[in-house]
């Protein structure tokens, strides 16, 4: 979509050059689809093969239909079976065994790993940290993403330049981004801290303080918002401007327009980004691991990647990091599988609740 479209959309109503263009118009004469169907009876896109099929015996028709459908969904089903269902089944089976990675399959342990999980203080810490990120990081990402997308739609000139600038951080590799943040925010010597000191503010310890390490990661997540922003931007530009025109004729304020026109129209996209961000946050691993290693000053120590997880004081020990720590350095792979199964179930439950809540939200919007 072009820059002029962008500037025209959610802004104040003004005469539209192509406002009445119907979606059917571009498909007029000469489009490949209408050429491909020589409809002598004038019945439109019904193809002659359709009639041929009707004359065949029904079992062949059914078989053919199944083959057609099967050939389309087959590869996807195969992928799901190999890469989702099989590993999930293996994980479930493994979670009921006591074993380390080197002595698989180990000995049967029933629900022992799950019982242990209830009393493991590290699970509580890790689950709390991950929950914290879901409650703070996801809304922060959504608000920043939607906010910057809204800003971009208001941009009159050079909007593609601003879009590029806003999107750039998303192109930075995660590890590089985290390292840059850790060094920029490094207490005492980092540029941010130095600047804050110049204006008389004593900066916090950022990644080195157990109470600031999580907010620092949220800042990082808000910085690299590009992907979410682009999705929102596309959705915002798709809101029909006639709705805004109608709303402003009815005398709706900008806030009311946002609440009653923009939000309901982009709600499917809002749901999509929420779901995606929640899943990503439940799986938060790289950012927390790299930040802990870099902030603890031991990023290059050959002591195993997992030895710094959670620094400082387990404040960044997310649930997936704990799964890794138990599964590999601690050699408790059965237990790690139990943790993973619980994460899977929790993810499904969270999404189920979210989708239900969201439905009532969109119903309430009208």
């Amino acid at each position, binding site marked *: 979509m072009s820059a002029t479209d962008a500037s025209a959309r959610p802004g104040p109503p003004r005469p539209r050059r192509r406002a009445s263009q119907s979606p059917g118009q571009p498909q007029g004469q000469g489009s490949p689809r209408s050429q491909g169907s020589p409809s002598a009876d004038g019945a439109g896109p019904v193809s002659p093969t359709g009639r041929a099929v009707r004359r065949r015996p029904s079992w062949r028709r059914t078989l053919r239909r199944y083959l057609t459908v099967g050939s389309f969904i087959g590869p996807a089903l195969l992928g799901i079976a190999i890469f989702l269902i099989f590993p999930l089944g293996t994980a479930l089976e493994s979670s009921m065994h006591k074993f*380390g990675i080197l002595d698989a399959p180990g000995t049967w342990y029933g629900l022992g790993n799950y019982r*242990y999980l209830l009393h493991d203080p590290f699970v509580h810490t890790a689950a709390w940290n991950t929950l914290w990120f879901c409650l703070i990081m996801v809304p922060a990402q959504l608000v920043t993403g939607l906010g910057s997308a809204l800003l971009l739609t208001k941009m009159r000139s050079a909007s593609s330049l601003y879009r590029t600038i806003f999107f750039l951080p998303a192109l930075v590799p995660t590890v590089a981004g985290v390292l840059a943040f850790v060094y920029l925010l490094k207490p005492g010597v980092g540029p941010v801290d130095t600047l804050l000191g110049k204006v008389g503010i004593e900066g916090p*310890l950022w990644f080195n303080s157990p109470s600031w390490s999580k907010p620092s990661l949220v800042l990082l997540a808000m910085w690299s918002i590009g992907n979410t922003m682009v999705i929102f931007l596309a959705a915002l530009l798709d809101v029909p401007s006639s709705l805004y025109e109608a709303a402003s004729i009815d005398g709706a304020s900008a806030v009311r327009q946002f609440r009653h026109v923009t939000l309901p129209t982009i709600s499917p996209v809002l749901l999509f980004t929420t*779901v995606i961000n929640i899943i990503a946050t439940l799986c938060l691993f790289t950012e927390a691991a790299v930040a802990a290693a870099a902030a603890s000053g031991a990023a*290059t120590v050959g002591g195993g990647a997992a030895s710094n997880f959670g620094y*400082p004081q387990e404040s960044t020990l997310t649930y997936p990091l704990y799964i890794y720590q138990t599964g590999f350095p*601690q*050699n408790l792979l059965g237990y790690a599988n139990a943790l993973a199964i619980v994460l899977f179930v929790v993810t499904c439950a969270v999404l189920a609740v979210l*989708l239900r809540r969201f439905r009532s939200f969109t*119903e309430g919007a009208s």
Partner: protein
Amino acid sequence: MKGHLRQSHRDGAKVARRHRTRLVGMVAIGAAIITAAAACTPSTHASKPIASPGVTASGTITFWHFFTDRESAAIKGVVGDFEASHPNIKVIVKDGQDDDKMTQAIAAGGGPDVGLSYSTDIVGKFCQSGAWQDLTPYIKRDKVDLSQIPGPVLNYTQYNNKRCTMPFLNDAYGIYYNKTMFAAAGITEPPKTLDELTADAKKLTKFNPDGSIKVAGFDPSFGVYENSAAHFAPMTGAKWLTDDGKSAIGTDPAWQDLLNWQKSLVDWYGYNKLTKFNATFGDEFSAQNAFEAGKLAINMDGEWRIASIAADKSKVDYGVAPIPVSAARASTYGSGYITGNVIGISRGSKNPEAAWTFIKYLTTNTDAMVKLANGIKNVPTLTSALNSPNLSADANFKLFLQISANPATSTTPPSGAGTTYQDDMQAFVDKWQAGKVSNLGTGLTQVDSQINQALSIAG
């Protein structure tokens, strides 16, 4: 307008409903898996008979190690020597490999022919599970003289009398002290006891006008550089595990001595002030290392720091000494913590003969070991190499050789649950130094039960 709104709302609801149906489907699939859990049984590798004496090994082998940069280049040089003297064997070297990665590769039936690990923590699980092959048949066949290897080193390279690894140099820990700062504070010799360490640390510490720390005499914070419960334990002789492999942390009073001493020094600085100071440190393996940069007067570190200081061209004028010990353990002064690199043959190796030839060269050939030790500045693990005139050891390096050979020197014990006991203890001491533990005794007992429970779910 109303019509539009209703339409868009309906669309939204439809999408939401569709998502929901899909989700229900996913949950149903998940439930189906419960009834159809697939079995996962990787093949167990039966030990193959080894070749008869005198057979020359040949072929290509892969070798993974964890070293990088300067140290990796030294390894490359020695591998070159090996290939020159064994023209039938080609070694493909991959550097910077993490233990976890190697473990996963071996478990999947692959992995390198020869692997090098930085951690004696893996010896337990690798020997027990057979992830690394038993080397005894090769050692017996080739009549390798194990008496060339010092006793403590022999011990940490085997588990339950099964030798699946050979020692490949080791690391010894001591303290580094800044001679310039010592002279300025009027201290003539490095501290020998924990009380002396505390007194010196206080004398050497300098504060900025705003009260923040400029130079710390000794930074006792756990989690900073090499400061960990494992490396501090020999100061009071604190024991990790009992003889039957359970946690000894709650019952050994030496832990309380160590932690109380550490906390008193932390509190002298003030925990928050110290944390703020620590946050300004550069990365451990860089020229911004706080000791090299003059922010620490005394620091605990391994023998490799000698080479790092030289490589970083740091101007620090330093001396080295064994770690200070508690007054009750004054007789053990001169010992310390050691950890060794261990090398072994993966169970999936296609060419164990060539792999063994390579390991034998690296770990029992005096000249090769001396060259390696000179190159990466680690401690040799052969008596002949330790005494070799070619070993370039200045007075500082010699001290680490002595620490390594001291009979009271110790390391962290192997455990079936890997690093669990150290991870749990690290989490505890982090809370402890932050002042979040009200009763040390009760806290340590809780750590005990955590570790023992984790041991109960280990395979």
